[in-house]
């Protein structure tokens, strides 16, 4: 059984259809890149999968590990291992990063019927994962994303992913706003997390992220539909010719 199976997914925002029949199958252990120009529906796809209620699914089906994903609340999807790395991570003033993560991790453990991690074990875990993504320990004590630079926010997303160990990680434009050093660090984090039972969905506009994270499959999303799928060479082709060709086809 595939980890994620999207069948003819249609979704709209305020009555306007953005996704117009997406079909996509992701197996465990795979890294898929969804590429597309601005306004193609990339971010909408990630938010619909994560359960944002500002989007209305008008048709289609999404199976996650055989379960009807669209039937679940956002928090239940997260507890089942769906992680969204936000394009614009949100600030939560006054709530320490570690406190937030502990609440998240324990909510997931509780869902799985596991006991809460004690303070010592938790601290050990986050220190180890912070090291993995080269995250300054001072950021752990600060309020969630408050006053973080763009790069720090993105790194914090990857750090959270490393702590929460999802089955399916959807990274929405994680590369945008990163300088080359930050991009390398974020990519190293993702690569370290790759494993046979975990899948990634990388949502990106540019090919440069794929220089650092090698995808198994590349999909071109234009006008709410996947116009073409292929291997990593498709991303290279896009880099040369741009999205214009696909936009013409889609029109």
């Amino acid at each position, binding site marked *: 059984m595939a980890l994620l199976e999207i069948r003819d997914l249609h979704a709209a925002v305020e009555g306007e259809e953005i996704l117009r029949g997406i079909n996509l199958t992701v197996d465990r252990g795979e890294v898929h890149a969804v590429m597309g120009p601005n306004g193609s529906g990339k971010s909408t796809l990630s938010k619909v999968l*994560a*359960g*944002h*209620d*500002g989007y209305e699914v008008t048709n289609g089906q999404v199976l996650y590990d055989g379960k009807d994903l669209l039937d679940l*609340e*956002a*928090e*239940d*999807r*997260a*507890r089942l291992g769906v*992680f*969204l790395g*936000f394009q614009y*991570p*949100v600030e*939560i*003033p*006054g*709530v320490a990063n570690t*406190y*937030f*993560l502990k*609440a*998240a*991790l324990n*909510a*997931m453990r*509780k*869902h799985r*019927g596991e006991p809460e991690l004690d303070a010592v074990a938790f601290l050990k875990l986050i220190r180890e994962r912070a090291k993995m993504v080269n995250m300054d320990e001072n950021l752990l004590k600060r*309020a969630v994303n408050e006053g973080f630079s763009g790069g720090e926010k993105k790194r914090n997303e990857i750090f*959270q992913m490393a702590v*929460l160990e999802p089955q399916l990680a959807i990274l929405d434009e994680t590369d945008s706003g990163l300088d080359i050093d930050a991009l390398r660090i974020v990519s190293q984090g993702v690569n370290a997390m790759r494993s046979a039972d975990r899948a990634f969905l990388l949502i990106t506009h540019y090919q440069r992220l794929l220089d650092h994270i090698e995808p198994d499959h590349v999909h071109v999303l234009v006008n709410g539909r996947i116009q073409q799928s292929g291997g990593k060479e498709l991303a290279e082709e896009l880099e040369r010719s741009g999205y214009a060709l696909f936009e013409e086809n889609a029109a």
Partner: protein
Amino acid sequence: MSASSKTIEEITGKRGYEYGFITDIEQESLPPGLSEETVRFISAKKDEPEWMLEWRLEALRGWLEMPHPNWAHVHYKPIDFQAISYYAAPKNQPKSLDEVDPKLLEMYEKLGIPMHEREMLAGVEGAGEQRPEVAVDAVFDSVSVGTTYKAKLAEQGIIFCSMSEAVQDHPELVRKYLGTVVPRKDNFFAALNSAVFSDGSFVYIPKGVRCPMELSTYFRMNAGHTGQFERTLIIAEEGASVSYLEGCTAPMRDENQLHAAVVELVALDDADIKYSTVQNWYPGDENGVGGIFNFVTKRGLCAGKRSRIAWTQVETGSAITWKYPSCVLKGDDSVGEFYSVAVTRGYQQADTGTKMIHMGKNTRSTIIAKGISAGHGEQSYRGLVRVLPTAKDARNYSQCDSMLIGDKCAAHTFPYIDAQHPGAQIEHEATTSRISEDQLFYCKQRGIGEEEAVSLIVNGFCRDVFKKLPMEFAVEAQKLLEVTLEDSVG
């Protein structure tokens, strides 16, 4: 049952007001009504000296001539002061802690208030991990039913007792300080309190003594149709310091009950008083029926040089809260602080804030007020910063933040600034925010359920204030906020 529905059940199980039970105990109470006779009865009941009775009667005469104040941004039907009973007490008045009615002890147990002094475990391994000692004065309706750790505190010359005892045992101190910070005719409710106050706590910390444990008073209203009018007086002599906590609960009743207290603090040279309140009076039901009218006057006098008074309050209960813990900064270099979290939900109303009166040179004050409004809650921050011509180089910083949850609640801010010295530095910042959809979605995407997410975000919002509370109280306050805010979303 799935894990998620179990979570929801656990959350809903603790919903509502946990402290709403009534203790069935034999009580004697005055019939409703207020006159000179009422005041004489209360005074006689307490076997008070003549000067105390006169003091009360003068307050009553003043009160009779005062109009009911109506400037606060709260709405309620006029209070019928003749329909209230001004005295209710358990029939069997204990002489010592050992004689306290077991039913009362059981009630305090249920409320989580420690009424037993723990035996000292000096030298015993692991004793350091115990909960810190807290001395408690328990006020039940009109009277104090017991005070713990009195003897131990007395070893250092600290007096911690009920106000009634203080009038008997330390009349010179009571006479010297009572009404010096909040005069008898200060305002309508203070005058009423001065006439009919029935008990409260008295604290005296002698020169140079740091009180070795937290002192606390726990106020419980139990009888119906009664008001609670307590009076607290705390005096910290030169170089003394004390941290004092107060908590309050009441049964759920359909009537509105009046709680009109007066608290006076006096800090002499280099003295430090920290006064923390977690107010959880019954707020009324979901339709706004019943609940406590909490009309309280609290004021501290920084009489001495370099003295400091800090008020921290977490106001989650009461149908109406009308309360402005204030500091009069008379001594040079004295410091006044006010940290407040107020929550209004259902049909609760709160008009609360502070006054910082700068008189001495180089006086400083800080105000941090966080208001959270949900449901049909109405909330106002009202604060006065006054710098008198004598207050050279006075400084104030005020920050008032409001958070709105839902679209039927309201928040207002009424800051008054009166600077009579050209060198005064006064800063005021105010914000109003909502819990954003984005914040909620972010939390949910990390597996945190909606109610926990709201409480997480709100606790973050209140952090600046919670970190000022004594450790255990901070935990209490956070839990209280969770219980209070459940069901406020959506």
